[in-house]
């Protein structure tokens, strides 16, 4: 019996849940866990932070008990309907979180009933002219921009003929946090007149109808707020918002739509090709211009037709979702997906209604079947969006092939994106621009890739990660004042569009602007999109917002790294007909050029010298095009934070360093007379992998600023002069050939290496006339103004250091710090992603600016930055340093460091199995691993670069700082009218420290690297780069008094306090007492460092830190460097 059950289960491979048993099993598990772990790990548990995933231990009985039928069913379902068990659980949790609870539904239903009762009690009004609105009380304003004001027609109020709930509430697909219930009020036929489809008459009646209702409802105590807004930000369609009173205010918003009596409008009058807004009326000319054909007004027509189909569309959706719970879940998930991408709100959005319609379309096409789960519905819809271009080939939900209905081609002529509703009349995506749809498609494609990638947590990336414009796009620019678009409309002769859109110049100009930019940027951008204009809500007593109140408009560009920075735009050959058009498009920027292949072409050349300027070429283009478009001066550029370098952002400096280094390595390879040959030369300095914040610059020392050491050709700093500029030695590892002659003893290897250093120095100066200075551990080479520090390495040396012989004579390898070769991998990354260097450097600058220079290793920051490029999902790899930096901050802040390893797949060496292996090992050994765990292909288990630092406290502080910086930066970037001081997040807060040690700027060699360029600078004993001197004396290398000082401080007082400093020219050292250091401790001979005796009571003697003396020590140790020690005793007492 049991045996057969086992055989049955064997058919299913992947695992699934049995929800009903979930709660009980958890409880059971905890009970079993406690007695076992309670005693043995009691202490560890208490100290370990809560909320850490621990490896699961199930008893044998639990693991091997025969499965039940339910379990089997569950198994089958997960196998068929979901991707993995975790995903299924996650989706279920998410749905629980966003869907409406039954209890709340009852409250909402009660509220709706009350509204219904009130609506039928709204009093009638006598008939008046449409333009005569004196009957409306003063405390309510018509929610409509009545331009031009005068219009024919009569209006009177009658209570609605029908009140129906429509939309997502009935379908059960509405999701938190904004629960909206849509209620359609059918205006009685008596209100409407024959020609109401003309000249916004219907729209104005709608508005008056709602205004009257609003005025009456606002007197009721039932409502917490009564406000207006525009439906989908379309200003022709105001709607009334009602919220309940009291604590339920946020629970629900009831939205009242007014719609015409069914069958009132004749559909044939409202086809996309028909005109319903007369030019003469719109321009307020007295008599209609004779002869001129009136232009079609498809958007206007569509806005009327929309209202006629509310109920039938609901029935259509209800039909599709009947008996199909997966559809409800799927639509809810899709709405979350859209919301995270900011696609579901504003004019031309893809809102929940359109999303439901798309799902219904797929159901009708049998692409979705009723047995599917919510996840599968989401997947199908994403697949559909990714592969279907509605802007080229629209779809229609209409089934009857009535030849009198407009065809899809008619729709395409009138609209950019086409999705026709079941009646065959309404385009549901009328306001959407093609570029917005392209964005939807792009997002869907990316999302499908994420879902198919089994190494990432698709759920987290697709449904839980918000993608704000600022963090998604490489370049973002804002139109500060949309009112300038009015001018553009005039210049581009968009009168017909303006009429069609009822005077909304933003909507009219937007498709034009995007197509202009798309053409101009061409292959430089992967994707160009814009933010959706959002209409605010306003109280009923206020005037409706104007078009210019839509705030600023933002555009996002995703760049293609290969083309984005090219300075040349090559056009057609001069004698071709396209050339004229090209010239017209680019204006005077276009010029004739002769190319190397002999062709003479029209071309546009953008002026940019450095990498920094080249990065801004797209900006130049946009500015130029928009200026041509007739709206100059409203470009607001994204601030570029430079590291603060004197010229450019240092890419060129690093290129010249690498060139010099390449030359040096070639010389090393070809050196004659070495006892062993050089097998490899490896640069390990960050500048050599393009990630040094301030790459070294060529230096020529000024002799008069230094003393010369007797007999040695080296300079020494003078104590009374300012400290010489810092010259960083760049470490270059020089691997020597293996040979039997290498000794097997540690000490002897050191001597041999020293001998090699001497030898290299001598040969380099003999054969290449380079100035060299050997030492026991390295040899410095002065070349092209740079200092390279050569270090000889012997490939077996790390092995010999690790070797220990066990008592049995077995040779074992002790684990010492692995010397991983991050450099070469990162170098490759830089070749693929030009923005990597900038991102990593900004990140480093930020970390150091927060005075955490020594709390995070450089390699760690490099790896974090690398992960942004290697695992960008749900974004694309950053193509500009700014967006990379924003994502760096977000990664720091949002990553779950406690429970997950950050896996950086350098070189794509890790396979799927490796990922699982890393994760399992991580969970098993979590308490013993560093707080920040970064795994790479060469280092799967130990996370070498974060082993020592950061500590848990520092990481915590780092996260807080990242959160604050990100918030400040994003606010700043998203608001073009605010201040644009990007450096703000690079200024550290100092109120956190107990003691501040102020330094003497004269002795800070890197003072110029400070975030804010110092007002006063010192001459640092260096000649200008073009000075004609051949240096024969070695400059001062690697001498930074502040670092010496910090080292001494940490050695002497590391037990008592923490020291924080910005290694790029910081003028202050922050000191923080360790909380434990002030605890009086009993006397211990080994622990009397800087302490003194104190009596706690009469008898008892304890030790406390000798604070006064220590504070004086701070000054003594840093004599000449320290300006003052500021003890903030208000934060602590002695």
């Amino acid at each position, binding site marked *: 019996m049991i045996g057969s059950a086992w055989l049955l289960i064997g058919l299913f491979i992947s695992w699934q849940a049995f929800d009903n048993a979930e709660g009980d099993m958890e409880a059971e598990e905890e009970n079993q866990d406690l007695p076992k772990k309670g005693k043995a790990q009691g202490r560890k548990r208490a100290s370990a932070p809560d909320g850490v995933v621990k490896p699961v231990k199930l008893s044998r009985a639990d693991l091997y008990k025969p499965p039940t039928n339910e379990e089997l069913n569950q198994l089958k379902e997960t196998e068929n309907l979901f991707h993995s068990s975790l995903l299924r659980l996650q989706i279920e949790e998410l749905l629980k979180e966003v869907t409406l609870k039954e209890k709340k539904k009852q409250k909402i239903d009660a509220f709706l009933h009350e509204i219904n009762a009130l609506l039928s009690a709204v009093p009638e009004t006598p008939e008046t002219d449409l333009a005569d609105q004196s009957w409306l009380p003063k405390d309510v304003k018509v929610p409509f921009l009545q331009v031009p004001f005068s219009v024919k027609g009569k209006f009177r109020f009658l209570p609605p003929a029908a009140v129906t709930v429509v939309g997502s509430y009935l379908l059960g697909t509405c999701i938190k946090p904004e629960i909206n219930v849509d209620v359609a009020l059918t205006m009685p036929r008596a209100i409407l007149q024959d020609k109401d489809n003309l000249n916004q008459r219907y729209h104005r009646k709608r508005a008056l109808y709602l205004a009257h209702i609003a005025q009456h409802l606002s007197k009721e105590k039932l409502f917490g707020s009564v406000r207006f807004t525009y439906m989908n930000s379309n200003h022709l369609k105001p709607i009334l918002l009602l919220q309940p009173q009291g604590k339920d205010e946020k629970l629900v918003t009831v939205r009242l739509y007014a719609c015409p009596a069914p069958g009132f409008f004749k559909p044939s009058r409202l086809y996309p090709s028909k005109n319903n807004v007369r030019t003469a009326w719109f321009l307020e000319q007295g008599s209609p211009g004779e002869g001129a054909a009136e232009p079609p007004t498809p958007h206007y027509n569509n806005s009327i037709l929309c209202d006629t189909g509310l109920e039938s569309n609901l029935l259509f959706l209800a039909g599709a979702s009947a008996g199909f719970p997966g559809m409800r879940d799927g639509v809810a998930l899709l709405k979350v997906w859209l919301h995270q991408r900011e696609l579901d709100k504003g004019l031309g959005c893809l809102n929940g209604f359109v999303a439901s319609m798309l799902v219904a379309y797929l159901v009708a096409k049998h692409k979705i079947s009723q047995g599917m789960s919510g996840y599968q519905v989401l997947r199908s819809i994403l697949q559909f969006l990714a592969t279907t271009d509605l802007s080229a080939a629209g779809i229609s939900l209409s089934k009857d092939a009535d030849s009198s209905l407009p065809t899809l081609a008619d729709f395409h002529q009138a609209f950019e994106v086409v999705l026709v509703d079941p009646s065959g009349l309404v385009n549901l995506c009328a306001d959407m621009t093609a570029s917005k749809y392209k964005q939807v498609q792009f997002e869907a494609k990316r999302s499908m890739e994420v879902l198919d990638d089994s190494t990432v947590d698709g759920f987290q990336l697709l449904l839980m990660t918000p993608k704000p414009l600022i963090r998604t796009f490489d370049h973002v620019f804002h139109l500060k004042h949309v009112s300038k678009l009015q001018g553009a409309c005039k210049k581009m002769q968009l009168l017909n569009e303006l009429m069609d859109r009822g005077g909304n110049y933003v909507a009219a100009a937007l498709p034009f602007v995007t197509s202009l930019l798309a053409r101009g940027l061409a292959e430089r951008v992967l994707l160009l999109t814009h933010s959706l204009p959002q209409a605010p809500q306003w109280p009923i007593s206020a005037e409706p917002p104007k078009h210019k109140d839509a705030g600023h408009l933002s555009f996002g560009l995703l760049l293609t790294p290969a083309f984005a920075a090219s300075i040349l735009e090559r056009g057609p050959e001069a004698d071709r007909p396209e050339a004229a058009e090209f010239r017209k498009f680019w204006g005077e920027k276009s010029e004739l050029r002769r190319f190397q292949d002999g062709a003479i072409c029209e071309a546009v050349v953008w002026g940019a010298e450095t990498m920094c300027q080249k990065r801004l070429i797209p900006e130049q283009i946009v500015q130029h095009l928009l200026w041509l478009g007739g709206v100059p001066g409203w470009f607001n550029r994204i601030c570029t934070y430079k590291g603060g370098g004197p010229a450019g952002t240092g890419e060129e400096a690093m290129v010249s360093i690498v060139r010099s280094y390449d030359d040096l390595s070639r010389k090393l390879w070809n050196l004659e007379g070495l006892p062993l040959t050089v097998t490899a030369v490896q640069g390990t300095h960050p500048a050599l992998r393009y990630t040094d914040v301030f790459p070294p610059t060529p230096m020529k020392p000024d002799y008069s600023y230094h003393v010369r050491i007797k007999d*040695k050709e080296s300079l020494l700093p003078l104590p009374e002069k300012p400290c010489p500029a810092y010259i960083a030695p760049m470490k270059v590892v020089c691997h020597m050939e293996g040979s039997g002659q290498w000794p097997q003893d540690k000490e002897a290897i050191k001597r041999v290496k020293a001998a090699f250093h001497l030898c290299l120095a001598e040969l380099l100066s003999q054969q290449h006339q380079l100035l060299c200075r*050997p030492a026991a551990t390295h040899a410095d080479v002065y070349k092209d103004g740079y200092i390279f520090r050569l270090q000889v390495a012997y490939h077996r040396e790390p092995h010999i250091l690790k070797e220990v012989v066990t008592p049995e*004579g077995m040779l074992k390898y002790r684990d010492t710090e692995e010397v991983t070769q991050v450099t070469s991998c990162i170098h490759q990354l830089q070749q693929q992603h030009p923005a990597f260097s900038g991102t990593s450097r900004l990140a480093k600058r930020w970390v150091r600016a927060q005075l955490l220079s020594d709390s995070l290793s450089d390699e760690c920051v490099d790896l974090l930055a690398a992960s942004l490029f290697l695992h960008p999902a749900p974004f694309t790899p950053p193509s500009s340093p700014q967006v990379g930096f924003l994502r760096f901050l977000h990664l720091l802040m949002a990553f779950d460091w406690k429970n997950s390893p950050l896996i950086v797949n350098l070189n794509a060496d890790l396979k799927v199995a490796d990922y699982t292996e890393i994760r399992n090992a991580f969970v098993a050994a979590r308490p013993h691993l560093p707080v920040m765990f970064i795994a790479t292909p060469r280092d799967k288990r130990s996370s070498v670069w974060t082993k020592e630092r950061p500590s848990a406290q520092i990481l915590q502080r780092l996260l807080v700082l990242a959160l604050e910086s990100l918030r400040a930066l994003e606010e700043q970037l998203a608001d073009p009218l605010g201040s644009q001081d990007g450096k703000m997040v690079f200024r550290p807060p100092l109120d956190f420290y107990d003691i501040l040690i102020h330094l003497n700027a004269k002795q800070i060699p890197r003072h110029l690297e400070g975030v804010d360029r110092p007002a006063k600078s010192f001459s640092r004993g260096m000649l200008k780069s073009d000075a004609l001197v051949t240096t024969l004396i070695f400059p001062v290398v690697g001498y930074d008094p502040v670092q010496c000082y910090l080292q001494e401080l940490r050695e002497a007082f590391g037990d008592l306090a923490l020291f924080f400093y910005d290694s790029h020219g910081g003028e202050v050292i922050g000191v923080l007492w360790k909380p434990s250091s002030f605890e009086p401790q009993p006397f211990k001979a080994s622990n009397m460092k800087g302490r*003194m005796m104190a009596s706690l009571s009469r008898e008892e003697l304890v030790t406390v830190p000798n604070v006064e003396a220590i504070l004086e*020590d701070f000054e003594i140790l840093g004599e000449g460097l320290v300006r003052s020690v500021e003890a903030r005793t208000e934060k602590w007492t002695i």
Partner: protein
Amino acid sequence: MAAGKRKHVTPAEAGAPAGYTAVPVKLSEKQLSPHYLYVKEHKVREGTDTTHPPNRTLFVLNIPPYCTKACLSRLFSCCSSVQAVNMCEKPGPREKPEAPKSKFFNLKTVPGFRVAYVVFKNPAGIQAAKSLSLQGPLVISSESRPVKTGIRKWIASYAASVVDPAELKAEVDTFMHTYDQKIAEEEAKAEEEAGVPDEEGWVKVTRKGRRPGLPRTEAASLRVLEREKRKRARKELLNFYAWQHRETKRENIAQLRKKFEEDKQRIALMRAQRKFRPY
């Protein structure tokens, strides 16, 4: 921060733990508050510590970072003439005498606050040193022999780091010469022993011989084990018997169950952290 928790303590000026005497010490007259050296007679069993003879050695605790060996020697020379000063990081028996000191290699300085053993020529020095506590604070840096700190010190140490190549070369050469000799001797000895059985008849196999055996390393032995395992696995028949078949399936289900439990735990945790609020 620390302030709240602190109980009220009064610093005891000359307070010292049992057996110790507190000696105040300053860098210069300008310094207002002194550090306290805690000194006592070094006591160990006779004969165990030859470098620090018990009756003449003073044990000093809490020496500030700027006080060098020479300074200490000078400070205590007022008591009695000092024979040797030995500074280390922690109190305790001295580590093994290191290899002959080198000017260029293994430079190790003891940083921060240290302890020291001061050996006097004459036992009377100890009593005299203990009485120092009654006088005013000792001054480390004097007019005649100033102690360098800060910028001056760092410049000096930078200057010291610039080495003379010739000197370095000479030292390396002598070291390698003795090393080569040592190695040559060892090899000669090993060659002599090669192939010669010891008193029990065992012959030592080395990597130099005609048939070198397996190297005795961890990696090699792991490799052997691995190979054995693979050989065994190849021979074994899987899913041959019905019970084997059942076992595999049972095992499979068990794995899935375990995975599921882990997933559930993860979800519970995320739920607790409100990780399912999408916005």
